[in-house]
């Protein structure tokens, strides 16, 4: 049934896109006119433009694909905003969480085979094999990894997230964060101290393995005592919210959040029966690393976004993750699929003696923070951080403003003082990313491309457009099915 045309009933108010010569008459007539700075959407392909147009919602057509997507996204946003991530426990070993994992190593980013892994990730795999005593020498470890008898899987598919190479092996202890609203749990490994010589950057020297043992035997039991001593666990959302107001983005800057964590565990540790030496060792470890909180921040975001995953038709991104070769995204309504594109080298500053030539392409699951509306999306809260990434405080504000164009909502739980306390933008919609041709910005550390060389810089990087274009294509085929 067709509606009666009504083009002449309203005051004519024009949006113009294309050649500006054609709206001169509109301009002279005094009618309202908005001129767009039009660019082809996404990767510039007309086919993608047409697919995307099929996904636009329509308030007068509840059954069209776009309207279904809009409704699903409203549900997803609700789940994100109402999430209550709480640090509830430490799992002494990953194998406690996943009893069937056997010889599985979890890694950052989308799926990748041993042969395709970047240098740092290969190094971390070797280190994890040595740590697990599955091999006695690096050479033997490499052979084992190549033999096919080790299973590799993304952390994300196990409800976990890992920083940088993100390797999780069965013996590693994990932070356990529970989303009290939906009940799901998320896991992340603990930050190693030791700077460059850490597994997460691909180092596997004996002292690295020693460091991992120390986490397993000292840090984990102490933190377990600390968290179980806090009644109901430690609610992370209020802590992260407060950190934003103290200059953190809780991705690349966790100085304030780590201090707040330190405050929360100190009393609990002192109340416990743990020896004074171990308490001291634990507090020294937390106090020595401004980034210590990142694992909890990531796990909190993962617990939030997993609850938002799997809503049919939703076009909201529930994970952005990098394995050092590719960036992959997961989309709520497209369960079971990764949409991948090549990872870029972060743009920013390098430590003295290093350059872009030494840099590994973007790596790590920490972009879960951006996915949940923190990190670069909340950069307006962290003006001090732009020094690391070579920008001005104005850039920090700009990132938060711009990312609002690719998201569907704002998080009133995470407000940005410099932008009049509006909520940080949240809920990346693949449709909007493609429509605005604006790729999500990620704050990140830059790893050396050789295993074990550690961090060589920091900067910002953008997720590749291909991930979002492919996701739009997949959503459009839902409509066809």
């Amino acid at each position, binding site marked *: 049934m*067709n*509606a*009666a*045309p*009504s*083009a*002449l009933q*309203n*005051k*004519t*108010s*024009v*949006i*113009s*896109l*294309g050649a500006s*010569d*054609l*709206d*001169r*008459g*509109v301009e*002279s*007539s005094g*009618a*309202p006119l*908005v001129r*767009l*700075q*039009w*660019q*082809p*959407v996404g*990767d*510039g392909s*007309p086919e993608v*433009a*047409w697919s*995307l*147009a*099929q996904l*636009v*919602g*329509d308030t*007068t*057509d509840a059954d*069209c694909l*776009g309207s279904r997507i809009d409704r699903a996204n409203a549900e997803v946003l609700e789940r994100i905003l109402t999430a209550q991530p709480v640090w509830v426990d430490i799992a002494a070993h990953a194998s406690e969480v996943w009893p069937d994992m056997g010889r599985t190593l979890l890694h950052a980013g989308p799926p990748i085979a041993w042969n395709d892994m970047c240098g740092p990730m290969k190094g971390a795999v070797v280190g994890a094999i040595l740590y697990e005593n599955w091999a006695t020498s690096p050479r033997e470890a490499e052979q084992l990894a190549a033999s096919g008898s080790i299973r590799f899987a993304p952390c994300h598919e196990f409800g976990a997230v890992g920083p940088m190479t993100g390797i999780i092996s069965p013996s590693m202890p994990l932070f356990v964060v529970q989303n009290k609203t939906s009940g799901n749990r998320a896991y992340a490994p603990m930050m190693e101290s030791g700077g460059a010589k850490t597994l997460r950057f691909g180092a596997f020297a004996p002292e690295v393995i020693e460091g991992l043992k120390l986490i397993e035997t000292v840090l984990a039991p102490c933190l377990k005592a600390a968290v179980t001593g806090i009644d109901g666990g430690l609610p992370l959302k209020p802590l992260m919210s407060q950190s934003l107001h103290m200059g953190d983005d809780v991705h690349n800057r966790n100085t304030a959040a780590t201090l707040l964590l330190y405050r929360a565990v100190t009393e609990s540790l002192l109340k416990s029966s743990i020896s004074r030496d171990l308490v001291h060792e634990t507090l020294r470890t937390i106090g020595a690393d401004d980034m210590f909180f990142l694992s909890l921040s990531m796990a909190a975001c993962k617990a939030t976004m997993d609850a938002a995953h799997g809503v049919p038709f939703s076009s909201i991104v529930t994970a952005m993750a990098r394995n050092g070769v590719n960036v992959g995204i997961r989309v709520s309504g497209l369960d079971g699929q990764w949409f991948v594109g090549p990872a870029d080298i972060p743009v920013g500053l390098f430590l003295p003696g290093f350059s872009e030539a030494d840099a590994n392409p973007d790596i790590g699951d920490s972009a879960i923070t951006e996915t949940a509306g923190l990190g670069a999306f909340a950069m307006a809260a962290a003006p001090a951080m732009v020094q690391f990434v070579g*920008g*001005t405080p*104005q*850039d920090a*504000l*700009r990132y938060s*403003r711009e990312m609002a*164009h690719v998201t569907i909502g704002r998080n009133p739980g995470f407000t940005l003082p410099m932008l009049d306390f509006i909520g940080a933008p949240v809920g990346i919609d693949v449709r*909007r990313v493609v*429509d*605005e*041709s604006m790729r999500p910005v990620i704050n990140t550390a830059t790893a050396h491309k050789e295993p074990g060389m550690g961090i060589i810089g920091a900067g910002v990087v953008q997720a590749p457009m291909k991930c979002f274009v492919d996701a739009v294509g997949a959503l459009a085929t839902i409509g066809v099915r």
Partner: protein
Amino acid sequence: MAIQSSIKANLYKDSVSLMRVSQVTVARTGVQRVTLLMGTRSNKEFLQQAGLMSPALESAKPGDIMIVVADDAPEKRAAAEQEIHSLIVGEEPKGGSAEAAAEAPPRSISRGVAIADHADLALISVPGPYAAAEALKALRRGLNVLLFSDNVPIEQEQAIKRVAAQKGLLVMGPDCGTAIINGVPLGFANVVRRGAIGLVGASGTGLQEVMCQIHRHGQGISQAIGTGSHDVSSEVGGITMLQGLELLAADAQTKVVAIVSKPPARDVQRRVIERAGAIGKPVVICFLGGEPAASAGNVHRTSSLEETARQAVALAGARQPGGDEQSIEALATRICASLAPSQRYLRGLYSGGTFCSEAQTIWRAAGLRVRSNAPLAGADHLADVEASQGHTAIDLGSDEFTVGRPHPMIDYGVRIERLLKEADDPTVACIVLDVVLGYGSHPNPAEILAPAIRRAKAASRGQGRELPVICFVCGTDADPQSFETQKAMLADAGAELVGSSTGVARAAQAIASRMEADDNATGRRVMQGGER
């Protein structure tokens, strides 16, 4: 000539912006040639054909700018390339500046709608392959659409018109150049007073001419709804034309409706006429180039733009304006007296496609054999569009003349070249030109055209002939270009001015018919290529 190529990645610019950059670069650096094109498949083919393609450009994506600089001097090429990059980037805010930090202008329809004051119409002129997608986005958000873009895939055109019809929205186009909605001129449109006559048209210049005539007769336009040239095909079914009729039927200000179109597909024609008969208002229908048809009931059939305007004005109750047949006859007599016997053929160099069609209709009806690059039924295809033959009517706005350059209503270059070429042909009896004013058109066409007419006439005179040039100006006294000044400048250059597109075509036809009759009477038959 040595060429140098590079790619500016991930930055779309429309062809007008790119041409501007090319022009400025050539002017500033003196480099031989600069070609800037987006990295589409068809643009790469174009470069291939032009011998400008290089391996460096293979990887260019549709959203990348391909830069080709041609000059034998390497330092000039380098200077040009540097200039191009700074011009392209110069339009973008510098990173980290206050400009860049402030809110960027909207790129998408979604953001445009968010910041607009109750937007209700999208004016879309992006490249055809992207245009229907933007139109669909606009429709989903409740906006009517004027789609200037051409080369929209037919299934996409059908899809967007279906959605529009469901929602009671209008898609004017694809390939719609002209509309006036609620007094707001869109695209190529003249400034006319508001009044009682509502127009629906599949042809842009046809609508412009009719609205200008109506304005000059003292009446005005309630609405002018463009449909785009494909709407009346059987694939699309005249959806927009029928919707336009509905809108005008319901519009209180509209007392008389006029339809201007090429002849629609048979089934569409039947539906339009049927619907027109039932709207309860007088309807004037001009299917230009179609079979003559008798008026019936409230439906009045006309066969020229001039007659359409006059009929509509009469039905709206204004004083019935008279024709200018007598002055046309007098003009033909005067011109013929100045011609040599060899000067027998008409050359219509049109920027408006409808004017080219109307001329063919009128010339053919008088028994003249007409050739065109856009022939109507009964006319012949011009073998080589660059070379006129016999009586020729050329639409310089059609694709073969406009790839990679602006429409001849904006850029008079191609027309002037052709005018000078025709001046060398001893068989030409007269040149016919249209000059279209209004928004979108050249800001001062007579300033460019008048000197060219002088040169053409002087060239012919140098060969011992007069070269009559007859023009009409499609415009009004309220247009931004100043109607009277434009006419005066053309007349001063020796052009003969006639009041309408129809009048010009008739005057030309009268000249050709007389020259032919004289020829037969005196028995001086010049055998030339079998022309009659």
